[in-house]
């Protein structure tokens, strides 16, 4: 029985938490309005989109300030507003939203980075004829993503999650007239669907076990102690508890969205979309939604973990998350080394960094993974927008071999891109990427299960520094190898770059070991500054390791590529050194071919089997039934034509003859009527006379 939405908050929430729903609602509304606009109304569309997201940023900042002030008064803020969506029988399906440090941080990040990218898009898409459609989709995406962030219900999160997937599909295929873009959109949609099916299974299972999909609901939510205790007591299979099994299913969904191995194949292809889309959706926000999801359900993932002193032990689910993340980090970094498309390199780098985040979540907890998510969002958005600026400047060329020496012609882009690169490489002390990656490596070093992820992540970091140096050398150094003249991008594009570059440096300050503000904020404990943390041998060792990583990676890259490539046709240095390895890497380690040979081939075969079944078996049955029906019909027809029709026709004929005979008597001649009258009277008289006698 569906009832009208009854708006009854279960927990007393502050005013700002009450109106938190405006943050996603306003951009979605704006997208609806833009959808109704005519195509030439570019300025209106852009103003609406940017204005609505600016409003969301305002509300998000207020909410963040509210959480911050609550925290500084020593209270961990977690306010929820829940309401019943509908009921069936005695079961309630509840939705709601939550304001806590995790959602507050994400809200500010998404709205802020999103706003910058919106502004940048007005420059990048200035000459596109579908400008209004672009901003319609972009607004819808922003609203859906913000919905994912504030959701306090797995169901609401899933709805927004799917909406985000839809807008991703729409935006990857934005230039649908390019066959490659259309194919990439389909690939992205279908691949993430694979993860989402598991995710949905996890949701259903969780609902069946706990009877609620709310995360927090004053003690009865699914992420709270009572429900988790019940889940831990349930045994699923292969020694997993129900909590672990549900956690793994949810992780499958997150892996699909966040491009984790083996579901990463869609993300590099997603670069077919416009570059602002790559920056916003496929680098900064949407792909981070998977990481955010794991952070959101972290109580479930870590349920049952033992405390080893100060270090949290691990669970099966978290171990899987860690291994997948670490493997993905190295795997994608390796592929990135041998790519030539400027956006593809960044795409594989994104996959790798998402692996870092997952590994960080698995080994270090919410704060470690989320810190890298936030810093990465800024510097990766910066890199993508820088790449967009480069592509714009060199007339839609994406092959790094056909660029070069752009540091002179595009100085602002070069400076900001360099900052982003150094942040991504994790250059110590000055760049945010160092602090967040450092935290992940630190927790990997202290992981109780195995040291292998640590070495994998270190190797991945070396590769990251290497391929980014290679890319920068190709694009900004050496000699100009392209056609025409490169030019710097307009102010509307470079200003967001500068702002993001500032944050790519500054954000590191909130997560240093000496003042772990971010971690304390997320965990709801007071932040303490302790400069002695910098003097600890373990941290100094890590600093030294990072230095070695960066020096080896950048040094090797510079040695091989710095000023070296002189013409676009010249084969890569590595290609000459180790051709088979290069070939495998540049073919993306044959993952697409592997899928083509297994999953897609299986589907092809299965489709053929189904086709054969359809044609021969079901088709035969249907034909037989059809034949029988036809036989029956023929019989019917024969009966109709010869028996029923004959009898009926005969009856009709007789009736009409009788009618004809009768009608002859009514010939309209008065005298003939009179004659009959007279005869009748004579007959009557005759009968009367004879009967008397």
């Amino acid at each position: 029985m569906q009832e009208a939405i009854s708006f009854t908050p279960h927990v007393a929430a502050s005013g700002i938490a009450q109106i938190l729903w405006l943050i996603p609602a306003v951009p979605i509304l704006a997208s609806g309005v833009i959808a109704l606009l005519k195509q030439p109304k570019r300025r209106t569309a852009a103003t609406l989109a940017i204005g609505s997201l600016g409003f969301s940023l305002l509300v998000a900042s207020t909410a963040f300030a509210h959480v911050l002030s609550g925290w500084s008064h020593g209270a961990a803020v977690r306010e929820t507003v829940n309401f019943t969506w509908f009921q069936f029988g005695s079961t309630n399906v509840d939705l709601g939203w939550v304001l806590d440090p995790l959602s507050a941080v994400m809200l500010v990040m998404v709205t802020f980075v999103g706003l910058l990218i919106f502004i940048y898009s007005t420059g990048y898409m200035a000459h596109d004829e579908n400008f209004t459609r672009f901003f319609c989709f972009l607004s819808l995406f922003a609203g859906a993503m913000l919905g994912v962030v504030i959701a306090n219900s797995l169901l609401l999160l899933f709805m927004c999650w799917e909406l985000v997937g839809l807008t991703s599909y729409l935006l990857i295929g934005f230039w649908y007239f390019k066959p490659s873009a259309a194919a990439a959109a389909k690939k992205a949609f279908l691949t993430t669907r694979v993860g989402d099916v598991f995710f949905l299974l996890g949701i259903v299972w969780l609902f069946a076990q706990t009877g609620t999909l709310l995360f927090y609901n004053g003690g009865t939510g699914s992420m709270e102690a009572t429900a988790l205790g019940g889940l831990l007591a349930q045994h699923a299979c292969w020694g997993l508890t129900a909590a672990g099994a549900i956690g793994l299913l949810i992780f499958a969904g997150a892996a699909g969205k966040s491009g984790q191995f083996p579901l990463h194949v869609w993300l590099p292809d997603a670069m077919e979309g416009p570059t602002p889309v790559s920056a916003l959706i496929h680098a900064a926000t949407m792909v981070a939604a998977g990481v955010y999801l794991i952070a959101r359900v972290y109580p479930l993932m870590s349920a049952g973990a033992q405390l080893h002193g100060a270090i949290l032990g691990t669970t099966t689910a978290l171990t899987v998350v860690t291994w997948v993340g670490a493997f993905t980090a190295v795997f994608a970094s390796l592929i990135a080394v041998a790519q030539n498309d400027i956006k593809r390199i960044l795409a594989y780098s994104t996959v790798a960094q998402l692996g870092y985040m997952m590994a960080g979540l698995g080994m270090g907890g919410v704060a470690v993974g989320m810190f890298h998510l936030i810093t990465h969002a800024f510097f990766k958005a910066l890199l993508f927008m820088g790449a967009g600026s480069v592509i714009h400047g060199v007339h839609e060329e994406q092959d790094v071999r056909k660029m070069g020496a752009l540091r002179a012609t595009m100085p602002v882009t070069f400076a900001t891109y360099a900052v982003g690169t150094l942040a991504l490489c994790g250059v110590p002390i000055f760049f945010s990427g160092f602090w967040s990656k450092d935290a992940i490596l630190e927790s990997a070093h202290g992981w109780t299960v195995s040291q292998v992820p640590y070495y994998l992540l270190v190797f991945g970091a070396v590769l990251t520094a290497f391929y980014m140096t290679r890319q920068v050398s190709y694009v900004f150094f050496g000699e100009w190898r392209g056609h025409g003249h490169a030019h710097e991008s307009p102010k509307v594009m470079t200003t967001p770059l500068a702002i993001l570059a500032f944050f790519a440096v500054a954000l590191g300050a909130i997560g240093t070991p000496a003042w772990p503000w971010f971690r304390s904020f997320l965990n709801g404990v007071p932040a303490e500054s302790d400069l002695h943390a910098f003097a600890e041998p373990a941290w100094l060792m890590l600093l030294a390791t990072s230095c070695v990583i960066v020096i080896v990676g950048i040094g090797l890259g510079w040695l091989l590529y710095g000023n070296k490539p002189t013409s676009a046709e010249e084969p890569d240095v590595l290609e000459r050194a180790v051709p088979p390895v290069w070939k495998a890497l540049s073919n993306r380690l044959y993952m697409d071919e592997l899928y083509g040979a297994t999953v897609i081939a299986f589907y092809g075969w299965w489709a053929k089997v189904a086709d054969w079944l359809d044609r021969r078996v079901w088709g035969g049955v249907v034909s037989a039934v059809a034949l029988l029906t036809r036989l029956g019909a023929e019989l019917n027809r024969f009966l109709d034509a010869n028996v029923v029709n004959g009898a009926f026709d005969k009856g009709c004929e007789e009736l009409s003859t009788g009618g004809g005979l009768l009608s002859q008597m009514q010939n309209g001649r008065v005298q003939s009527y009179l004659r009959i009258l007279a005869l009748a009277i004579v007959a009557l008289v005759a009968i009367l006379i004879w009967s008397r006698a």
Partner: protein
Amino acid sequence: MSPLAGYLLVAALLFAIGLAGALTRRNAILVLIGIELMLNAANLNLIAFWRYGPHPEALTGMMFAIFSIAVAAAEAAVGLGLVISIHRHAHTTDLDAMNRMKG
């Protein structure tokens, strides 16, 4: 033969002549004349039965005959009016042509 039987025979003869005229003539006026003959045969019967009936002193039979003649006069006037109207309309008084009202 009683006088009554003679009257009745004459009346029957008159009726038969009138009927034959009404049935055989094509001209509507002649048919009307035939009908008048049959009416007068009936009037003759009325008078005859009254005169030789059980109460000849009462004037019932005469009254009947007078009413009948009055009605016949009215009927003849209506009938002739109809015939004239038909003649104006169809330029004929042939009854066989008057079959428009056939169903």
